[in-house]
């Protein structure tokens, strides 16, 4: 018999090692009325961890707008659910796997994809698309390269194998992510809107069923394990990195969807972070019932696992369900057909407690209400980020042509084809706009005309300079990207990646970002339906840039109406929106002038909505052949991307008098779109009629991009510059 870590003395010292403060431990003692067992302490520590309890962020998250007539389930479920018409619901969420991806980039990213997939199919949806939002450190570091390589392979390795197309995402580089990359993964699924599965357990005596992979000692909290006295074989029991098994996930998706077509399931929940603990506690808690688990029945991959280990294991590809007792055999047959473990590991009770038994002993017996209701909740002090001084005049050191060449080659704007070429974006046969094809990916619903528009967005340098404006900008950009395809934006999911919330400045960034996001959500009718919070993203006291990544979802009645961003010849180019030439926090300022200064571009939410609704109307009326929003890098970069996307040049007209050329072409003013249209006059007239600012900026055609000063730039050369960075960087020394 292996040594029994459960026999370890539980006291305040151990509670601290488990991440509970003295106050929190006092509350545990109060709830329990005795010293908790090791397993009980483990359960409290994970349920009250930042990750599960949202103790620092909850007060702010509650202020997010989450309602709209089309929202079926907002935050609080495994994923958000919106009505997309025709009796269907889109189910989606984004989740972070930042720390695991730093430790082991491939597996960290892969298991991140696996985890978010489960959050979506656990609700009854077939996953139809994956996206991601990635931030990496300085490309000059060898470590960054290794992380990028591993993360990209991991996302592809998992998503390609489960057969869910990866259709979009974003990547930024900044030294603040050197020791702390961000890997946020998003999944979107489709379900019959009358068949959504929830996690609230119900039905006294109903069986609690475990399905999927076996439980091992994966990912049990490192700090906890390292400090426990495990004796001689401690090497064996070190916390192990979670390894993803996409093949098993694929089987789990098919088996769950097959079971969901029956009426066997009362409640279902994936085992995500804190595995069996959080799934059982949350299911019972939400349903207001008690739960009793018999760990002897848990399928185990390793020998001599303790109750503590099983309750805290984060082994992947597992689900917990409450079944109708008379349908247990139907369910078992389905999981056996798919070669997956199926075990009844417990029962629902009326005790209001979670009771965990193992080898004839009661290892835990905790009242569920206080565990949830008395979970810590902090109003942490906040400090506002000081407003940045205005930028003032910035002279143009190099001219338009040289600046364009620099910008489109820089890591933040270089072509991401190297990345998305490793992601299967077409599996399923419904991908109407692949990565790079449009501002948002377009994925059709099989057998229908209906399609979804999907995007992820955030500009962390804006958020850092002004968290409120940056938060609003992230939401606005997601909305704009969806709009630019012709789709109607419906809702967002978010992934709040911030540093240490115990620092007032960081908590202030969080609070202000939420304020900005909320304002944008309200103004754009774009509620938050799900999300995730990842705090303490810093290494050696160096915080990441605040990164509230937004995942946006929109809908198109007819996929054939979707437009892309690639130019075709013989069109007029029309710029919609107001250009003052905002260079503060622009990429031009950073890459060309070598400065990271000034306030970020303000977001005029009314104009944003007004301009966007106009653009969408023009697209749906069939007047627009291509459309691209103006974001990072400004107008000239946007036009260049359209030219490269359609392999068609353009002839640009000088901008209006009163705005310096470099500010006009590289400023990052918000709320703007470039439209390629057959008939500029018609579109300009329509814009003038409703009062939307719009001007003609050129025509498309040829194999060159001719700048307003007459400088011709060959598309081939621009393409080479744009496509150079990733392959050159990754192939610099051989990869194994």
């Amino acid at each position, binding site marked *: 018999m292996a040594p029994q870590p459960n026999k370890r003395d539980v006291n305040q010292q151990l509670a601290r090692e488990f991440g509970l403060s003295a106050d929190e431990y006092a509350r545990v003692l109060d709830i329990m009325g005795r010293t908790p067992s090791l397993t009980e302490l483990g359960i409290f520590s994970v349920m009250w961890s930042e990750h599960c309890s949202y103790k620092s962020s909850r007060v702010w998250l509650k202020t997010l707008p989450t309602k709209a007539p089309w929202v079926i389930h907002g935050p609080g479920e495994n994923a958000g659910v919106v009505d997309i018409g025709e009796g269907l619901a889109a189910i989606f969420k984004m989740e972070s796997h930042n720390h695991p991806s730093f*430790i082991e980039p491939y597996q960290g990213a892969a298991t991140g994809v696996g985890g978010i997939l489960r959050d979506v199919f656990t609700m009854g949806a077939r996953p139809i698309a994956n996206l991601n939002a990635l931030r990496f450190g300085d490309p000059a570091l060898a470590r960054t390269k290794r992380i990028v390589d591993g993360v990209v392979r991991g996302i592809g390795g998992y998503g390609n194998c489960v057969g869910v197309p990866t259709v979009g995402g974003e990547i930024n580089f900044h030294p603040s992510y050197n020791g702390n990359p961000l890997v946020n993964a998003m999944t979107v699924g489709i379900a019959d809107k009358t068949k959504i599965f929830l996690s609230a357990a119900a039905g006294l005596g109903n069986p609690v069923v475990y399905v999927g992979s076996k439980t091992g000692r994966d990912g049990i909290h490192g700090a906890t394990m390292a400090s426990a006295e495990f004796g001689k074989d401690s090497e064996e029991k070190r916390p192990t990195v979670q390894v993803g098994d996409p093949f098993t996930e694929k089987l789990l998706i098919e088996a769950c969807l097959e079971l969901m077509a029956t009426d066997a399931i009362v409640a279902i929940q994936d085992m995500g972070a804190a595995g069996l603990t959080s799934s059982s506690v949350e299911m019972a808690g939400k349903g207001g019932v008690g739960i009793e688990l018999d760990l002897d029945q848990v399928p185990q991959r*390793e020998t001599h696992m303790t109750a503590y280990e099983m309750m805290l294991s984060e082994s992947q590809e597992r689900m917990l369900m409450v079944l109708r007792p008379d349908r247990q055999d139907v369910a078992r047959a389905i999981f056996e057909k798919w070669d997956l473990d199926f075990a009844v590991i417990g029962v629902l009770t009326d005790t209001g407690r979670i009771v965990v038994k193992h080898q004839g002993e009661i290892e835990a017996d905790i009242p569920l209400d206080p565990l949830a209701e008395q979970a810590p909740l902090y109003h942490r002090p906040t400090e506002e980020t000081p407003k940045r001084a205005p930028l003032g005049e910035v002279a143009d050191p190099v001219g338009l042509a040289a600046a364009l060449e620099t910008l489109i080659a820089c890591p933040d704007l270089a072509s991401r084809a190297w990345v998305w070429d490793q992601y299967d974006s077409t599996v399923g046969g419904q991908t109407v706009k692949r990565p790079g094809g449009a501002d948002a990916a377009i994925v059709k619903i099989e057998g229908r005309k209906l399609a979804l528009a999907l995007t992820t967005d955030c500009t962390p340098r804006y958020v850092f300079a002004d968290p409120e404006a940056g938060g609003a900008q992230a939401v606005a950009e997601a909305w704009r990207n969806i709009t630019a395809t012709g789709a109607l934006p419906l809702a967002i999911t978010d992934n709040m990646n911030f540093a240490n919330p115990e620092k007032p400045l960081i908590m202030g960034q969080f609070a202000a970002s939420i304020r900005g996001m909320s304002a944008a959500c309200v103004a754009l009718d774009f509620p938050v339906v799900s999300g995730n919070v990842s705090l303490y993203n810093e290494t050696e006291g160096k915080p990441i840039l605040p990164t509230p990544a937004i995942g946006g979802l929109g809908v198109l009645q007819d996929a054939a109406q979707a437009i892309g961003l690639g130019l075709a010849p013989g069109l007029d180019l029309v710029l919609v929106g107001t250009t003052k030439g905002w260079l503060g926090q622009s990429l031009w300022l950073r890459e060309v002038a070598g400065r990271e200064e000034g306030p970020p571009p303000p977001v005029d939410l009314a104009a944003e909505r007004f301009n966007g609704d106009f653009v969408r109307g023009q697209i749906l009326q069939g007047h627009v052949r291509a459309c691209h929003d103006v974001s990072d890098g400004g107008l000239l970069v946007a036009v260049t991307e359209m030219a490269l996307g359609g392999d068609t040049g353009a002839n640009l007209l000088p901008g209006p008098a009163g705005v310096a050329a470099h500010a006009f072409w590289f400023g990052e003013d918000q709320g703007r779109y470039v439209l390629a249209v057959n008939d500029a006059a018609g579109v300009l007239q329509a814009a003038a009629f409703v009062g939307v600012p719009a001007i003609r900026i050129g025509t498309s055609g040829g194999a060159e991009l001719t700048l307003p000063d007459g400088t011709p730039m060959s598309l081939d050369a621009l393409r080479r510059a744009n496509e150079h960075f990733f392959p050159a960087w990754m192939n610099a020394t051989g990869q*194994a």
Partner: protein
Amino acid sequence: MKATVTVMLKTGVLDPQGKAIGQALHGLGFAGVGEVRAGKVIELELAETDPAKAKASAEDMARKLLANTVIEGFKVEIA
């Protein structure tokens, strides 16, 4: 000299490949197959002629590149 570096997942780390191979062997009717683990082997031709030095060098390669020591262990043989 020839160095053979064998890289296996550490005990306790899930080995989906090994698991699937085990199931397939059962499916083919091979009885009595217990745990199956899948790993990599890398054979290196080394100019070094001193076996001890060759081994040290191969171990260094394993640590730096051939094995992912977060999840994998390795073993070096010299012939």
